């Protein structure tokens, strides 16, 4: 944190103890690893589930369809349009003069499987491992992409709203008095606004994209941490070491961020995993209600809604339920371990 210290890279004894406490919570520790592995894998979703091959060898040349689009004519086809590698004609043409390396799942989140032998939604088969949705798209591919969108959305929302919340709480708690009084009343009014209705109304006026949804949810989610941080600052502003810093002539900003904030961070970091899971749920529920991401985007909430609409196709509801349940459980377990790590009285034997 402070570059001037010659030992900044070494963990302070306090943080070493915290790390040990975190590790001692086996469930949370393993949850973190499982979650990280899933998250990193989902970051490379294009390499796992895609309707284009990763690498094509054709007529002595290499092609990388996953990053660049090639017209069908490049592979001896007739049309100037982009090659559809799933088309048997193209696949045969390539197989004649070379080979293709496919991802594990040969569907992207929006690929419609036109070779279904049964009407969509199709049950699990060798081609679609957990079946297709009601538009013939592969469920597994949509889950992988949907997981990525959910987690990314949740992370960004959580981090940005925490930063805003911490700053707002810090200013309120540190200065107190009128600033605090007015800000508290404003917060009470703000949190009284009917969030869901506003989102529904706004969603019908403007087409919600990833960014717009993020901004809309952010309008209401930043208030979550204000109370906690404000309380910590109110408590700490009369501590002797804050007074000592004032006597040294430190400015308010320095005192707030160098002396008080590190103490308030314990409460903040303890809350963060729970805010993260809350953010994930917020997006999922909006998608479920149909006010979320635009139609066609991969989304766990939308898949859940399909499961509800197609009760005769249980693979839709069950898979989306398990993915959401497992993801949230992992986040809560991690949160518990973080809480243990920051608990000064926790003793492990």
């Amino acid at each position, binding site marked *: 944190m402070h570059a*001037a210290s010659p030992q900044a890279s070494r963990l*302070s004894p*306090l943080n070493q103890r915290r790390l040990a406490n975190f590790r001692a919570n086996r469930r949370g520790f393993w949850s973190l690893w499982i979650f990280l592995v899933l998250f990193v894998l989902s970051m490379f979703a294009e390499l796992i589930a895609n309707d284009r091959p990763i690498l094509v060898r054709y007529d002595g040349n290499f092609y990388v369809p996953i990053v660049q689009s090639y017209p069908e004519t490049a592979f001896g086809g007739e049309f100037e349009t982009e090659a559809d590698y799933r088309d048997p004609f193209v696949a045969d043409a390539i197989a004649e003069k070379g080979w293709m390396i496919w991802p594990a799942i040969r569907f992207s989140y929006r690929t419609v499987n036109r070779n279904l032998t049964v009407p969509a939604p199709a049950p699990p088969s060798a081609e679609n491992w957990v079946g297709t949705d009601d538009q013939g798209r592969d469920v597994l591919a949509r889950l992988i992409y949907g997981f990525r969108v959910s987690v990314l959305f949740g992370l960004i929302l959580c981090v940005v709203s925490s930063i805003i919340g911490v700053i707002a709480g810090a200013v309120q708690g540190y200065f107190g008095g009128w600033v605090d009084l007015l800000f508290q009343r404003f917060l009470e009014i703000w949190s009284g606004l009917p969030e869901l209705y506003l989102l529904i109304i706004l969603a019908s006026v403007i087409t919600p994209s990833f960014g717009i949804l993020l901004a809309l949810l952010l309008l209401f989610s930043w208030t979550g941490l204000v109370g906690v941080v404000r309380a910590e600052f109110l408590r700490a502003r009369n501590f*002797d070491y804050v007074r000592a810093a004032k006597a040294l*002539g430190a400015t308010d900003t320095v005192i707030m961020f160098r*002396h008080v904030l590190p*103490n308030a961070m314990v409460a903040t970091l303890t809350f963060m995993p729970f805010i993260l899971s809350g953010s994930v749920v917020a997006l999922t529920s909006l998608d479920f209600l149909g006010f979320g991401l635009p139609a066609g985007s991969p989304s766990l909430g939308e898949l859940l809604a399909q499961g509800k609409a197609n009760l005769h196709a249980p693979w839709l509801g069950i898979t989306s339920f398990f993915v959401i349940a497992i993801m949230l459980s992992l986040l809560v377990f991690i949160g518990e371990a973080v809480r243990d790590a920051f608990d000064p009285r926790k003793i*492990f*034997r």
Partner: protein
Amino acid sequence: MADEPLLSVRDLSVSFHTGKGQTFTAVDRVSFQLNKGETLALVGESGSGKSVTALSILQLLPYPLAHHPAGSSVRFEGQEQVGASEESLRRIRGNRVAMIFQEPMTSLNPLHTIERQIGEVLTIHKGLGGEAARARIVELLNLVGLKEQAEKRLDAYPHQLSGGQRQRVMIAMALANDPALLIADEPTTAVDVTIQAQLLKLLRELQQKLGMAILFITHDLGVVRKIAHRVCVMQKGRIVEAGDVKTVFDAPRHEYTRHLLEAEPKGKPVTPPANARTLVEGKDIRVWFPIKGGLLRRTQGHVKAVDGIDFVLKEGHTLGVVGESGSGKTTLGLALLRLETARGKIEFNGKEIQDLRQSELRPLRREMQIVFQDPYGSLSPRLSVGEIIGEGLKIHRIGRTDEERDALIVAALNEVRLDPETRHRYPHEFSGGQRQRIAIARALVLKPKFLVLDEPTSALDLSVQAQIVDLLRELQERHRLAYLFISHDLRVVRALADEVMVLKDGKIVERGPASRIFDAPTQPYTRALMAAAFELEAIEGAVRT
């Protein structure tokens, strides 16, 4: 059976698991006995194992984190306590053996009235309730000297009482069931000297009246001499010397006892330089806190924390500010540094500073610094010692490079006699005395001219106090520092101050050269303070209870 002492502790050891399979032995084969009606003092510095010994008598340690190795024995009224069942222990705790703690504010439940606090003990052990309990509680409050309006005090909450009154309530709770043994764990450390004198007197009287035995734990040898019959001196978990108070004090055999006895702050203040200029001058300084009330929160009156104080402080001089808690000493110190809003005229180094804005004040902050009372609270726990000391250097842009600043930090640590390598460590790794040295180094590194010392020694062990006083004196001589030394402990003030100002309720009661104040105080309030500090005697009437 008849010959067996009331309490007999034999080869008591206490070990704590510190994690990773290691253990730490806090108490090492301690043995002592205590007879009916007798007072035994356990003396030692922080960490010597006195409190742990006392807690293990009632088996109140955090088991199984703590455990007693084989051979440990605590017999009370002929019954073995180590390993006794919870049920039999509960019959003894608060009933036959009662305990009072150091910090009266945190030992009382803030949400319960006095009646409920004391009543609880009566209900648990005697099954008393309603009117019978109420009558007994009033009787107890009278016994501990809360005579005025004892009836009215029943409905009071702990925050409505002063520190001394709270400690009396604690004693009343302890006495509720006529215990045979009272364990007092530093009961007077957190209160003023005047209150300490009153509490000691109360405990002596109660012992005579009720004939109970007292196990008194303290680090203050003055208190031991006043109250105890026998004394055990503890060091690092062992009893190094035991015997009658008179024998031990007159002819200490162990080196550590001698060290403790010599540790009281001694010496004379530095002779101040003759040609000193006036450094700080205050005229009619007032700090009034408004009391707001009513629907519109209008100011209805003021708490006059500091009420019209004049003083002059010269270079190299020490002005001792003396008084009980709540007399406005600390507020005055904060007001001089403009850390508290004050009215009146404050002049520093020939410049009026009371109307300066914070940004204009910043360059002056380098020359006036403060050291706080609580060395645990005044150092930011998340910064290394080097960062804490170096902060002022950065703010005032002293030293151009990191290396230059590092050299200044090393010099400051050397000056307060700490190993310069400590700058890479964090405050929690240090003892109270070392932390106070760090706090002094933080102020010194800026080369100030004026230092406010707000009870810098009162949270420390006696022998450490003496070291800090010696250090302060030496620094003053070397740098011609002006000190405003705030304390309720007159022993320390006598060792440092050449001028003394006695405060009561924000006003000056008496002032003058230290020698005159200490040798011939004119005001009754000053005399009461002296008696409490030097002879631990309570003089009724002059001071609050």
